[in-house]
């Protein structure tokens, strides 16, 4: 209620103005106190884990809230080798890159067709794609598991990548369709009048204009893949192929008595995604809210 209110007090008597200002100040101070309180509640777990990751079990036991001095780098080293983070992390990157590439490429094509091209069956395809948006993965997990087994991709990286891509396509197609519909038709028409084929119109004229939509979709798919849990839980049964979020579950189960080691695993899981989030914050928030408003 700050800036717009400031013009009002002029009409009030001076004394009222002073007490009004005091009240405003108190309000602002209270608001800040609350905000900082919440900031602490949201950050304390991270600080706790970060400090534990650099302490030995004995250091933690001696002073659970003390600073990690001297820092114990062993935890990180052990989580990396013993805890298989040297495999979990590259796995996650491979999954994310592959799924983003697949989802973005295929969604661009189908989204464009659904938005801009005329063909029999278009409305039916649109309706069928709705199924994938409405239905949770749980509804599909059982047949998907046996399908992956029968296709012999269950124990491989493809066993994660292909279903994850397929599952991302319905939202991707919807997002890209909406984006292509928002572009002015005249641009495409101008290119057509100049004699361009539909493929040329798509590739040279429309696709470059769709870049912001693609960036949002890429961010969304990245987050979905990085944080995927049930999908790899069902489809990725070999430890050396697990992504970080699933790997962390088994890692914490295996080394449950060693807090420093567990904390190191947590750090390996969350620090990369937090860094990407901070770098691309606006896109992240856009991506997640676009996902919600689908």
């Amino acid at each position, binding site marked *: *209620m700050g*800036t*717009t209110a400031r013009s*009002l007090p002029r009409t009030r008597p001076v004394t009222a103005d002073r007490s009004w200002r005091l009240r405003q100040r108190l309000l602002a101070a209270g608001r*800040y106190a*609350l*905000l900082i309180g*919440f*900031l602490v509640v949201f950050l*304390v*777990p*991270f600080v*706790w884990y970060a400090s534990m990751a650099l302490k030995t079990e004995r250091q933690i036991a001696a002073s*659970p*809230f003390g600073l990690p001095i001297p820092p114990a780098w062993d935890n990180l080293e052990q989580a990396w080798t013993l805890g298989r983070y040297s495999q979990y992390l590259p796995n996650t990157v491979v999954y994310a890159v592959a799924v983003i590439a697949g989802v973005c490429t*295929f969604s661009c*094509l*189908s989204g464009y*067709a659904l938005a801009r091209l*005329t*063909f029999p069956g*278009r409305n039916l*395809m649109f309706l069928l*794609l709705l*199924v*994938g948006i*409405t*239905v*949770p993965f*749980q*509804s*599909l*997990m*059982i*047949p998907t598991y046996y*399908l992956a087994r029968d296709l012999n991709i269950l124990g491989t990286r493809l066993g994660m990548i*292909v279903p994850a891509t*397929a599952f991302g*396509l319905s939202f991707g197609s919807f997002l890209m369709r909406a984006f292509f519909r928002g572009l002015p*038709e*005249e641009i495409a*028409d101008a290119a057509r009048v100049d004699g361009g084929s*539909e*493929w040329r119109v*798509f590739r040279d004229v429309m696709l470059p204009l769709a870049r912001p939509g693609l960036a949002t979709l890429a961010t969304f798919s990245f*987050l979905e893949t990085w*944080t*995927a*849990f049930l999908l790899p*839980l069902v489809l990725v049964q070999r430890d050396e192929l697990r992504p970080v979020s699933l790997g962390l*579950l088994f890692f914490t189960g295996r080394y449950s008595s060693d*807090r420093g080691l567990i904390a190191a695993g947590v750090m390996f899981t969350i620090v990369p995604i*937090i860094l990407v*989030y901070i770098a691309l*914050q606006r896109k*992240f*928030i856009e991506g*997640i*809210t676009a996902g*919600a408003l689908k």
Partner: protein
Amino acid sequence: MAYPMRQRGLLSGITRPRRVNWIAYLFMLPTVVLYSLFVLYPFVASFSLSLTDWNGADSVRTFVGFDNYVRLVRDGVLRTALTHNLVWMVVGSAGGIGLGFLLALLVWHRPRGFVLFRTVFFLPQVLGAAVVGIIWKLIYRPYKGLLYELGETFDIPFLRFPFLGETTTALGAILAAAIWAGAGFFFVILLAGLQNVDRDLLDAARVDGASGAQRLRHVVVPQLAPIFTLVLVLALIGSLNVFDIVWAMTEGGPANSTEVIGTYSYTKAFLESNVGYAAALTMVMTALAIGVSAVLIRIRARQEV
């Protein structure tokens, strides 16, 4: 729907006939193949599996008709699980949306440090529910968890309780973690909504002597009504489908005290190899998800008019 722009403008007289773009099928091909195989087929297959008593290993699947669905009705664990989903809908939604709205109101006027606050409040969203669950499982852990240590250090006996290990507190403890993680999501959406609230109306109410609470109740909230509806439906869908955070923290235990339909169907399908019955359970989830989504689609259709 096809060429709305052709109706007017330069091209109006010389419109091409509505031509079929055959190339569209090439555009659709990869999506149709992958989607049919890994979404549409499993969607249909779930239903047909739910009519069998398959155990996942045998080559024979006996058709049992709607037997599994009859069993669903008498399944006490399912009833417990659905009750927890219902609790989740009420407490989880109210808590998450309430906290998110409070946070949004606190930073509405972009105080100094706005970007920091927004970044931190939204942070749990990017970790994923499973990782949030694992982090909180260790925070609640007796003897070695954060809360226990805080209880030791500052002598607060209440905090030394094994929250996840007791049937009375486990669900509440998971819900608290879920609210902590979910608030940032509602915060961002509601904050976007607050940016569109009519400031003149607010000032008018202030001049008329409305208190802060009155302005909130009679000016801000009514203008946000469509967004609240949307956010509520999203929260309800999320409450029905919840799995990751519960599985990561308790796997539905102890003694089914945190069981939700998502964890129950996973357990039946992959730990107890009761595939036919699990498929019937997932059909219940599908039906509920479609029901709530239908409401959402209708609401959105009405809003877009």
